[in-house]
């Protein structure tokens, strides 16, 4: 069976169709596959580079918790803005108990310095040194957090009672969560 002219034309047509399929579909798909594989390799490297990051997050979260608690404990010593009057009443009662007379008590407007606000309170006291000492000791060691900003104790010769000018800063709880 000798190939005829029609066979030759048919063969050429088939080769043409196969070439068309190869370049139009298979070659393109091959290129797509190579590109996707390159992307996969790149992404795999990125994933491997960041593999420990979830452990780091767990670690960081575990570290953050005690720091948050520390801050919460510390700000727990601050006075509520609405309870400044209670603090002043308590201070007056303590002063009375120690035999100290509070002749002036002037709360100032809240001052915001860095992260927290504090209310300055200016006072004038009069009393014997032991009473004043006990009052100031109580102020510095008990809650809420009050810092003596200025303290002047004057004791005139011949007088038993001391005159005290005192400015304290009363730390205020943040209005919306520390």
């Amino acid at each position: 069976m000798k190939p005829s002219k029609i066979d030759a034309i048919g063969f050429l047509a088939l080769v043409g169709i196969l070439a068309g399929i190869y370049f139009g579909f298979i070659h393109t798909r091959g290129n797509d596959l190579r590109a996707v594989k390159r992307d996969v390799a790149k992404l795999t490297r990125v994933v491997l580079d960041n593999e420990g990051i979830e452990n780091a997050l767990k670690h960081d979260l575990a570290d953050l918790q005690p720091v948050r608690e520390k801050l919460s404990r510390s700000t727990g010593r601050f006075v509520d803005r609405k309870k400044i009057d209670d603090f002043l009443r308590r201070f007056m009662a303590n002063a009375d108990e120690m035999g100290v007379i509070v002749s002036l008590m002037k709360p100032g407007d809240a001052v915001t310095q860095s992260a927290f606000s504090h209310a300055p309170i200016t006072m004038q006291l009069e009393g014997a040194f032991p009473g004043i000492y006990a009052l100031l000791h109580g102020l510095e060691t008990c809650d809420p957090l009050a810092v003596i900003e200025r303290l002047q104790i004057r004791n005139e010769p011949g007088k038993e009672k001391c005159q005290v000018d005192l400015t304290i800063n009363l730390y205020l709880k943040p209005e919306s969560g520390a």
Partner: protein
Amino acid sequence: MKQVNLLPPEYAYARYFRKRLATWAAFILAAGAMVGSLGFNLSSQLHKAQAEKQRLQGRIETLKNVNDEIQGIAVEKAAIAAKLADIYRAQRKQVDATILYDLAAASNDRVFLVDVLMSIGAPPAPKPTPAPAAAVAAAEADVKPLAVLTVRGYALTNLDLTQFVSGLAKSSSLKQVNLKYGRQEVVMKLKLIAFEIECLPNIEQQP
């Protein structure tokens, strides 16, 4: 013996045509199968690779979120460290009662204090925090407000004044005790030694 082909030519042509058709059909089927399997194989590989790529992209998105969360934690830690530094700075200013106690301990009935002034100045500007992790620890250490204690009074004798000054110098709550002056003055018809002492609260020693 001579063979004679008795088949009619139409029949011979038909047989020849069927054979060629079968050959062509086999050839086309083989080529089709080859191209089809190649295409199918490529498609399935591409599909798998794309699925893997999608999975990895999802994973990277998760890792990005984790990274953002870590950044957020670092920022929160730094903010907390700054707040704690403020609180510790405030707490370390609470030294007045201890200083008054030490003043009382150093003095005796031969020394008479007329003016004790303690003023805490503005704290030093906070340094930029190097890293959130170290900042919390640094916050506890780097908080030294400026404060000066000035004491004015009278002593009966120079010896009493010296004893008072040395008592203050020994106090753990005070440092750099400096006698600014000590001179004789007449107070209520008594010859006394008037003095002024300046010193700094030893804030590092405070609890």
